[in-house]
C-alpha cells in the first residue's frame, strides 16, 4: 500500500492538467459556461462603470451645489473675513470661500453683460457672503440650520430640491447597481455550477472508483475546482477585453458629441486596474464557487 502522500500534498501540476483536460473534454459545455459568464461579467461591469461615472458626475454636481451664507451688512469687511473660521467649525462644511460685495457685483454684472441697467450698480446693494462647500448632501438641511446660527450670518441660500434630487438619484443608482450585480453573480455561479455538475455526472463512475480505492475528497475535488477556476479566469479575461473595447467605443461616441459638456467620463487608463481585478476576482469566485457547489453531492459515497 502506498503511503499517505496524497493526504497532505497538493499536486498542483496534476490537478491543473486534470482541470484543463476536463475543460477540453467537454468543450461545448465549457464554451457555453464561459460565454454565459462573459455575458454576466460584461453586464455587471457595464453597470458598475455606469454607476461609477454617474457617482463621479453627481459628486461634481454636488460640489457645485454650494450654500451661500450672507453676512450682516452692519459688519465691517474685517469682521466678515474673520467669520471664515467660525463657518469652518460647522460640521459637514469642508470649505468656505469669502466673496466681498465688490466681487459679488462683478460676478453679477458678468452674468448679465447685456443689461445696461446693471452695469453701474453700487456694490453697497450687495452683502459680503461666503460660498460654503459641504461634504454630505443628505445633511444639507441640518447644516444650513447650523450655519444660520453662526453670529453674523443673516441669511442662507441653498437649493434644497436639487440637493435631495442628487441624493435620491445617487442612492437609487447604487441600489439598482448592487442588486443587479448580486443577481448576475448568482446567475453566473449557477451556470458554472450546472456545467460542472454535468461534467461531474458524466464522470461519476470515475469518482466512485477513486473513492473506493481510497482517494481523499480533496483529491477528487481539486481538478473540478481548477476547472471552475480556469473557466472563471478565461471568462474574466475575455470579458475584460470586451469591456475595454465597449468603454472605448462609448467614450469616443460621447467625446464627439455635445453630451460631453453635460457628462464627463473617466478615461479607461485610470480604471483598468480595478476593472481587471474585479473581473478576475468575480470570475474566480464564480468558477470556484460553482465547482464546489457542483461536486459536493458526488462526494457522499
Amino acid at each position, binding site marked *: *500500500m*502506498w*503511503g*499517505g*502522500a*496524497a*493526504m497532505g*500534498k497538493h499536486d498542483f501540476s*496534476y490537478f491543473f492538467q486534470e482541470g484543463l483536460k476536463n475543460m477540453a473534454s467537454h468543450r461545448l459545455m465549457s464554451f457555453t459556461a464561459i460565454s454565459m459568464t462573459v455575458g454576466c461579467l460584461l453586464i455587471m461591469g457595464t453597470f458598475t462603470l455606469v454607476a461609477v461615472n454617474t457617482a463621479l458626475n453627481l459628486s461634481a454636481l454636488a460640489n457645485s451645489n454650494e450654500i451661500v451664507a450672507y453676512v450682516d451688512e452692519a459688519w465691517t469687511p474685517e469682521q466678515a473675513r474673520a467669520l471664515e473660521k467660525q463657518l469652518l467649525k460647522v460640521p459637514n462644511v469642508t470649505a468656505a470661500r469669502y466673496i466681498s460685495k465688490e466681487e459679488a457685483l462683478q460676478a453679477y454684472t458678468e452674468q448679465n453683460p447685456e443689461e445696461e441697467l446693471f452695469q453701474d450698480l453700487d456694490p453697497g446693494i450687495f452683502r459680503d457672503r461666503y460660498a460654503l462647500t459641504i461634504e454630505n448632501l443628505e445633511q444639507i438641511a441640518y447644516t444650513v440650520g447650523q450655519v444660520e446660527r453662526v453670529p453674523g450670518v443673516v441669511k442662507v441660500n441653498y437649493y434644497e430640491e436639487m440637493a435631495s434630487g442628487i441624493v435620491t438619484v445617487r442612492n437609487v443608482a447604487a441600489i439598482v447597481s448592487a442588486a443587479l450585480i448580486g443577481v448576475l453573480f448568482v446567475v453566473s455561479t449557477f451556470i458554472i455550477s450546472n456545467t460542472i455538475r454535468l461534467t461531474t455526472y458524466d464522470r461519476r*463512475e*470515475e469518482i*466512485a*472508483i*477513486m*473513492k*473506493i*480505492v*481510497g*482517494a*481523499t475528497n480533496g*483529491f*477528487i475535488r481539486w481538478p473540478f475546482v481548477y476547472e471552475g477556476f480556469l473557466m472563471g479566469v478565461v471568462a474574466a479575461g475575455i470579458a475584460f477585453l470586451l469591456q475595454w473595447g465597449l468603454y472605448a467605443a462609448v467614450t469616443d461616441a460621447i467625446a464627439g458629441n455635445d453630451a460631453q459638456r453635460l457628462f464627463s467620463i473617466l478615461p479607461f487608463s485610470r480604471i483598468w486596474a480595478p476593472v481587471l481585478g474585479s473581473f478576475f476576482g468575480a470570475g474566480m469566485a464564480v468558477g470556484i464557487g460553482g465547482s464546489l457547489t457542483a461536486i459536493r453531492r458526488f462526494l457522499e*459515497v
Partner: protein
Amino acid sequence: MIRLKDVELVYENGTKAIQGITLTIEDGEFVFLVGPSGSGKSTIVKLLTGEILPTFGRVMINGFSIMNIKDRQIPLMRRTLGVVYQDFRLIEKKTVYDNLSFVMRAVGASPREIKERIPRVLHLLDLDDKAQCRPPELSGGEQQRAAIARALVNNPSTVIADEPTGNLDPDRSVELMRLLVKINQMGTTVVVVTHARELVNRFGKRVVTLDEGLVTHDAVGRYVGGRRYG
C-alpha cells in the same frame, strides 16, 4: 484482519439484510463467501468497503473500526483493500495502463512509483501487451484481469472480489480463480463472493455460507449447500 461481531443491518425500508453475523478472517486467508441471492453477500462487501454502516455490532477492517472511523480515515482504510467487481468497472476511455496509473495517482503515488509498479503488476496478470488497449478492445477475461490488476496496483493487504467470474466462461473462471489463489499465496488476504458452486468445490478453501443474513456454515473444503443455493 477482518472481524464482524454481532453485525446487524436493517435498510431504511425495514429489510433485514444482516441478522447478527460474527465472522473473523485472518490475515493471509483465502475465503469464499457464498449464498443465494438476497443472502447478504453484497451487503457484507458494502460493509467491508465502508459504503454503508451496520445498524448494530462491530466491524473491524485491517485495524480500522468502521463504527468509530472518522471521515478522513475512510480513504486510509480503503487503501488497505483492493476491490474487484463482476462488471469490472474499468474506465472505458482510458487505456489499461491509465486505469492503473489513475488509481495509483489517487492515493498519492509518485510518477516514478507508477512507472515502476504498473509493468510488474501487468506482468503478474499476463497483460504486458495490453497496457495500451482500452477496455472495450479486451476480452471479458482480460478485462477482469485488468480489474484485478487495478485492485492490486496499490498493494492492498486484502482483495475483495465480488462475483468476479459472473461474466466469464468456465475456463476463464478457473484461470481467474487460480490467479486469485496465486495472489493469496503472495501474502494478500482474499475474499471471493461467488455463486459458482463448482468453482468453490474445486479449490478446497474456507467457505462461509450465508442465508437470509446469517452465517449458516463456515468450514474449510467443499460447500455445504443451503436449501436455495445455486
